[in-house]
C-alpha cells in the first residue's frame, strides 16, 4: 500500500493568519455544537448546515456561506464534552474550521482526529470574535491581543492515525495488512 498522505491536523504551524469567528467559554458540550434533535442526520454533507444550530449569529454565517477556510472557533476548557455523537466533529470538519481550546474532552478529541478536523490544544488561550490568530512553530499567537500560547501536542497514541490521514484510511491499511 502506498504511503498515506500526511494530515494537516499534525501541523497547525502551516496555517496562515486567520480570524476568530466564534468565541465560547468552558464546557462547550456536543449538545451545543450539534443539538440532539438532529441526530438522525448523519451524512457529513448534511451535518455542517446544522453546526451550532441554536446559535443564531453563527447560523447566519453558516447560511450565508461566509465562513472562511481555516477560521477559528475559540473554546475554553473541556471543549466537546458530553455525548459521543460524531456529528459534532463532522459538522465542523465540513465547515473547514480550526478549533482552538484550552483543553478538549476525550471522545470529541478522538472523533476530531479520526475525521481529520483540525484541533489545537493551547492552555490559557483566550480570544474574542474578530481577533487575528497566527499559528507558528509550536505556538499560537493572538495578534490582536499580542498574546502567545504554547500548543500541547495531540496524544501520541493517536499520531499514527493522524499520519495516515484519518481513521478510515488507517483502518483500511491495517485491514489490507491482514492475511
Amino acid at each position, binding site marked *: 500500500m502506498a504511503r498515506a498522505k500526511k494530515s494537516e491536523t499534525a501541523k497547525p504551524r502551516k496555517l496562515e493568519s486567520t480570524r476568530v469567528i466564534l468565541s465560547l467559554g468552558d*464546557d462547550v*458540550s456536543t*449538545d*451545543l455544537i450539534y*443539538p*440532539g*434533535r438532529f*441526530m*438522525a*442526520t*448523519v*451524512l457529513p454533507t448534511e451535518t455542517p448546515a446544522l453546526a451550532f444550530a*441554536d446559535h443564531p449569529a453563527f447560523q447566519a454565517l453558516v447560511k450565508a456561506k461566509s465562513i472562511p477556510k481555516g477560521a477559528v472557533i475559540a473554546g475554553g*476548557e*473541556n471543549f466537546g*464534552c*458530553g*455525548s*459521543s*455523537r*460524531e*456529528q459534532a*466533529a463532522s459538522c465542523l470538519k465540513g465547515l473547514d474550521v480550526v478549533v482552538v481550546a484550552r*483543553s478538549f*474532552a*476525550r*471522545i470529541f478529541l*478522538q*472523533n476530531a482526529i*479520526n*475525521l481529520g478536523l483540525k484541533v489545537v490544544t493551547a492552555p490559557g488561550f483566550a480570544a474574542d470574535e474578530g481577533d487575528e490568530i497566527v499559528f507558528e512553530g509550536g505556538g499560537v499567537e493572538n495578534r490582536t491581543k499580542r498574546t502567545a500560547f504554547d500548543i500541547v501536542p495531540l*496524544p*501520541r*497514541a*493517536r499520531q*499514527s*492515525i493522524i499520519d495516515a490521514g*484519518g*481513521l*478510515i484510511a*488507517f*483502518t*483500511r491499511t*491495517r*485491514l*489490507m495488512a*491482514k492475511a
Partner: protein
Amino acid sequence: MKKKTGGATAVEKILARASGNEFVRAGDVVEPRVDLAMSHENAALVINQFKEIFEGTGRVAKPWDPSRIAIIFDHRVPAESAKTATNQKKVRAFVAEHGITKFHDVRGDVGGICHQILPERGYVQPGMVVVGTDSHTTSHGALGAFAFGIGATEMASAWALGVALNIEVPRTIRVRVTGRFGKHVGPKDLILHLIGILSAQGANFRVLEFTGETIANLSTSGRLVLCNMSVEAGATAGIVPGDAETVRYLREEAGFTGPIDLVTSDPNATYERTVEIDVSALEPVVACPHTVDNVKPVSAVAGKSVQQVVIGSCTNGRLEDLAEAAAIVRGKHVAEGTRMLVFPASAKIWAEALKLGYLSDFMAAGAVVMNAGCGPCLGVHEGALGDGEAAISTTNRNFKGRMGNPGAEVYLSSPAVAAASALTGVITDPRKES
C-alpha cells in the same frame, strides 16, 4: 516494555490480557481485542463508515464477529421522524444480513435503553473490554468491565478489525467510599457530589475506580449509577471491580450461566490519587444548570419552581429508582402546573414495575408513564421544555438545550428529590416531604 514493578489496577490487568501482554502500565499504548461492541440508532452512521473502510479494497464488508456486536434502538423509539424510521430500517437490514443476534428492536418485551439491556441480558461480564458509540458506555464498568465511549468511525474500525486501536492505558483515580447513606440519600447524590469535587473535566483521560465498604454493599443497580455518570467528570471509564455482588447479579438477575472471572486491583496497585468520601454526612444534592459539576445541596435550591419532572434514563430508570419514586408519590398528587414523566429503562423493568403496582401509583398521582427508552433525556422526540421552563430530572446531563430547548433549565437529582418535587411543584428535599 517497562519492567514490572508493584501491583496492577483492574483496568491495567484487563488491558494487558486483552492486548496479549503480560502486564501493562498507565501510559502504555495497547491494542486490546474488543469483547463487546455496542451501538444504538447511530449504528446507521457506523454502517456508512464501515462500508467506506472497505471501499476499493476488493474485500467484502463483513464485521469481524457479529456475535460480539450489540445494537439496541433506544434514543428515538418509536421513531419520531421519517428520517429516524428510515435509519432504523437500514440498521435492521444490516442486522439481518450479518446475523447479529444481540439486537433489540422497538419492542415491549425485550426493548430498552442500551445501558440497561447490556447488564440485564448478561452481555457484559467482569474483565471484558466493551466499546460503545455512546458516552455513557462507562456504565458497564459497574460489572467489572473496562467500558468506554467512542465515535462512529472508531466503531466502524472495531467492527472491521476486532480491536480498539491505539488505546493509551489510562491512569486511575481511586474513589474510596465509606459510611451509610442516610434516608433518601443514595448513589446519585454520591456521584453528583463527586463530580462537584472533581469538576466536569477533573477525571479527563482517567479511570474512576470505586472501592470501599459502601461500594461493597451497593447493588449493581447503584453501581451502574456511579459508573454511568463517571463520564460527566470526563472519565474514560468508571469501574467497580467484580465481586460477590457482581456474581449474584449475573447469576440471579441476568441469568448468565457461563464462567465468571473476577479481575480485581492489587492492593499495591498505583493510583494517581485517592478521593475519600464518607456518605454518612451526605445530603441530597442537585446539579444546577447548565453544567453537571454545578452541584449544590438541595437546601440551596429548594423552592425553585419546576414545570416538568422526569424519572428515568440509563442513570435512574431501574426498578430501585421507580420503587423509591413510587413510594413518595403513592396516594398523593402531582402539583398543578407540573408534568411528571416516567420512563422505565427497559421493557423488563416496565413489566416488573407494572406487576409491583408502581406504574399505577404513578398514574394515580397524575404522572404520565411512557415506553421504555431514552425519552426526554436528550430532547429529541418527547417531553421537550417550553421557553423559560425548568425541569428536575433523574437523567445525567443538564447542558443548555439538552432537553430540547436552549431557553429552558434542567436540574439533575436522585429519584427521591425529583418525586418529592413533583408533589410540590418546586424543588423539594424529600426528607421534609415524607
